[in-house]
Each structure stands twice: as structure tokens, then as C-alpha cells.
């Protein structure tokens, strides 16, 4: 099963529209904030990227992670709503393939979101600050880092969505997970590695060791989600 097929299945569900609108909204956050509170930010000593990200990233990350949750729920809702999942299960393919294709599609959408947000930050830098080429590379590093930190959320939300056939249950669990992430103290190193708390981190103002650990945690957590999905599918088949 391929990403293109998964894309096809989302036709007329508002999936793409939601991601475009959500991405634009998340991108609008720093721009609106700069427009309204220009005086608070312009003229500070820190690099432009640091100022903009520190001022806006929490909200932008929140919107991004909520979009991923809604997207994941929707991808499995189309399977469960009219029992199409049963037809998929009787296809001569591994059921894990369905999960990986959905992960692929959601990852593609996260790249899209990350790109829109990077563009918005770049616009703010150009419009309100004097920036250097070095800062552009920081911006690129930051959003590459962000993308990797989004991986556990993509895999995690899809894992949750694949287990429940009523869409509101994974949605509820997802909301609880995101809420937990917002409640975790940011100064605790281990708690900040909670899968759904990772996307709230920024690259700026961090030492290399911390960054490396965040990236490693993101990859390991994503792999664990994939393994968990495999076990769940096996278990479901065994218990069916």
C-alpha cells in the first residue's frame, strides 16, 4: 500500500484543507504577533530567529501537534466508518503496510506544515529584523530538528488511532496526551522527552548534547511505536 493510495482515500474528507488552513494559521501566529507587538521584539540584542521562536513557538507547536492528532484520527476514521478496514485486512498485504503508508502520508503533511512555519519565520526575519546568513542556517537546522521531533507524535497518534474504531476515543486520548505534555515541567530533562512534549522544544539556545539526546529519543520513540503497532496487529489477529 502506498502513500499515494492513502492520499486518495482522504478525498472529500477535508484532510488537505484542514492541513492547509491549520498550517496557514500556525504560520500567521508569528506574523500577527510581530504586527501587534513589534515594539516588544524589535531592537533586542538576541538573534532574530531566537526572538521569534521564543515568542511564538509554543503556540505554533501546539497547533502543529493538534493538526497531526486530527489528521491521524481522520486517516483511520475513513477506514473504520464504512468498514473498509475489513476489505483492507483481506488484501494480500501485510496489515502493517497500511500503518506505514498512513505514517508516510502524515510525515509528508508534517513536512508541509514545518515548511509553512519556516517560511513564516523567514518572513518575520526579513521584514522586521536585520538577519545574517548564519541565522538562515540556524532556521534550517531548527526546522529539520523540529521535523524529527514530530516523528513520535506522528507514529504515536497513528498507533492510538489504529487501535480504536470510534474516532472520538483516539481523539480524547490524544487530547489528554497533549495536555499532559503541556503540564510537564520543562526543566526536567527526562520528562521533556515525553513523545508529545518533544515538538515544543526549539533548536535555539540548546547545547549539542541536549539536541543529540532529543533526536535520539525521537527516533527511539518512533521505532517503539512501530514495534507496538506490530505487536497490536499480531495480538488482534491472535485474539480474533
Amino acid at each position: 500500500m502506498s502513500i499515494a493510495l492513502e492520499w486518495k482515500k482522504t478525498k472529500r474528507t477535508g484532510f488537505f484543507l484542514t492541513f492547509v488552513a491549520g498550517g496557514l494559521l500556525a504560520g500567521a501566529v508569528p506574523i500577527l504577533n510581530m504586527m501587534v507587538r513589534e515594539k516588544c521584539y524589535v531592537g533586542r540584542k538576541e538573534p532574530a530567529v531566537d526572538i521569534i521562536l521564543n515568542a511564538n513557538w509554543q503556540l505554533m507547536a501546539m497547533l502543529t501537534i493538534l493538526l497531526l492528532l486530527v489528521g491521524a484520527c481522520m486517516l483511520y476514521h475513513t477506514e473504520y466508518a464504512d468498514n473498509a478496514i475489513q476489505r483492507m485486512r483481506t488484501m494480500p498485504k501485510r496489515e502493517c503496510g497500511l500503518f506505514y503508508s498512513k505514517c508516510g502520508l502524515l510525515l509528508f503533511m508534517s513536512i508541509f506544515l514545518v515548511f509553512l512555519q519556516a517560511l513564516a519565520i523567514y518572513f518575520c526575519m526579513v521584514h522586521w529584523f536585520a538577519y545574517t546568513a548564519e541565522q538562515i542556517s540556524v532556521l534550517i537546522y531548527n526546522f529539520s530538528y523540529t521535523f524529527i521531533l514530530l516523528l513520535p507524535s506522528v507514529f504515536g497518534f497513528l498507533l492510538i488511532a489504529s487501535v480504536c474504531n470510534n474516532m472520538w476515543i483516539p481523539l480524547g486520548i490524544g487530547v489528554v496526551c497533549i495536555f499532559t505534555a503541556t503540564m510537564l515541567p520543562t526543566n526536567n530533562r527526562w520528562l521533556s522527552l515525553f513523545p508529545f512534549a518533544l515538538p515544543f522544544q526549539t533548536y535555539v539556545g540548546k547545547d549539542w548534547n541536549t539536541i543529540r539526546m532529543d533526536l535520539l529519543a525521537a527516533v527511539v520513540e518512533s521505532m517503539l511505536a512501530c514495534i507496538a503497532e506490530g505487536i497490536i496487529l499480531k495480538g488482534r489477529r491472535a485474539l480474533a
Partner: protein
Amino acid sequence: MNIIETKNLTKSYGNFTAVSGVNLHIPRGTVYGFLGPNGAGKSTTMKMFLGLTKPTEGTFSIDNKRYPEDRVEILKEVGSFIEAPAFYGNLSGEENLEIIRKILGLPKASVKEALELVGLTEHRKRLAKKYSLGMKQRLGLASALIGRPPILILDEPTNGLDPVGIHEIRTLIRSLPQKFNCTVFVSSHLLSEIELMADNIGILNHGHLIFEGTLPMLKRNASLQGFPTENLEETFLAMIDEDNRQRSGKR
């Protein structure tokens, strides 16, 4: 030569046994009618063949392949239609089949062919959720027939169709072994329907296989046991009734 065989196939849910020690023999290139009242275990048996549920005991082989080792290999050869039709409501009939086609790696023309086979060509652009019950049923059938699989497993395929539709689908199923050189395993709770389609019959009641053989054999058996044989529906009812009586006697 049998294409599907089961040995002592059993499925229990807690204390309840849905399918109990069933031994089926489905010859290649025939239509096998699987008959039984509602809740007899027909769908459960079919689900086991498709790997949708695991046998509690016993084994089965499909084209000499075994579950669970050869699950994917089995599914490559099987087109299926189980209980309520399964589809993506937000996609049109054609788009639904397009998805199945791509997964199975079939040529583009197969979608058109499947739509024509079930008479949905006219409605192919309409959203599946807006289909009538009969059209949903036809879409389900098309998704089973697409790519001409060598084995077809159809669970009550005429449910929800009007008399004309029932006749069309029956004729289609009857013609499939010659047309596509395939084996059809079809279930129903109406003997009159199976009579018109099937070469071989298996009758299931309360999870037990109470008869397996050809129609003439069924008639012969029935007359030997003193059941009415003029009307097959009555024969079936009498057999089920007798089986139920024996079962309650045992209890």
C-alpha cells in the same frame, strides 16, 4: 481435487461454539453452496478462511496453502465479500475499486470490467455512501470479482437486492466457473437460491455440518430419512428442525 479443505475446524467464543468440528471439501472449479439458518456459523467459517478470525481448533487449507503461514499467499488468490459490504463512503464506486486495483497491482481495465460485471457502470461516479443498499452490495461484489481471482468467497451476496438483481447476480455466480475458471464458495440461508447456483452443498446448523454433497445426494438422503423431497425448501426446514430436535434432546 479439492481446492478448499477443512479438518475439524472449530471456533469458540468463551462457552459458545460458533463452528464445531467442521470438515468441508470444496472441489476446484465448482460453485459450493454453504447453507444454514442465521447464526449457524457460516460467516465465522468464511472469516476464518480470510484470516479475519483464528480457528480455536482444527486446520484448513486453501489451494494447498495453510493459515497462518501462507496468509498473504491465500489472500492473493481469494476475492471476498463478507457480511455488510465494506467501502470508503467518501469515495465514489469507481474510486473504491481503483484502490483495490492498485493494491492488487491489476491493469486499469479491471475496474471497468468489474463495474460492468455487477452492473454499476452507470453509477460509478456516485459517492459510495449515497448508494442504495443493493448498489452497495454490488460494489462489494465488484471488489471481490475484480482481477478474476481463482477463488471467490461470497457471504450472502444477494442480500438487499431486488428480484431482478438477485437473478442477475445468481446467473453471474453460476457462470463464473466457466467464464473465469474459478471456484466459488457462496453462503445463503435460502436453499431455493443455492439450488439454482451450486454444484455442491454444505448445510450448517448450530456450527455443525449436517450434510455435504450434491443436490441429488441431498434428495436421496432426505427421502431415506423420511423428509419431504418435492419442495427443497421444505426438505431443508425439516432437516434443520430434526437436527434442532436431536440437539435439544442431547442437552
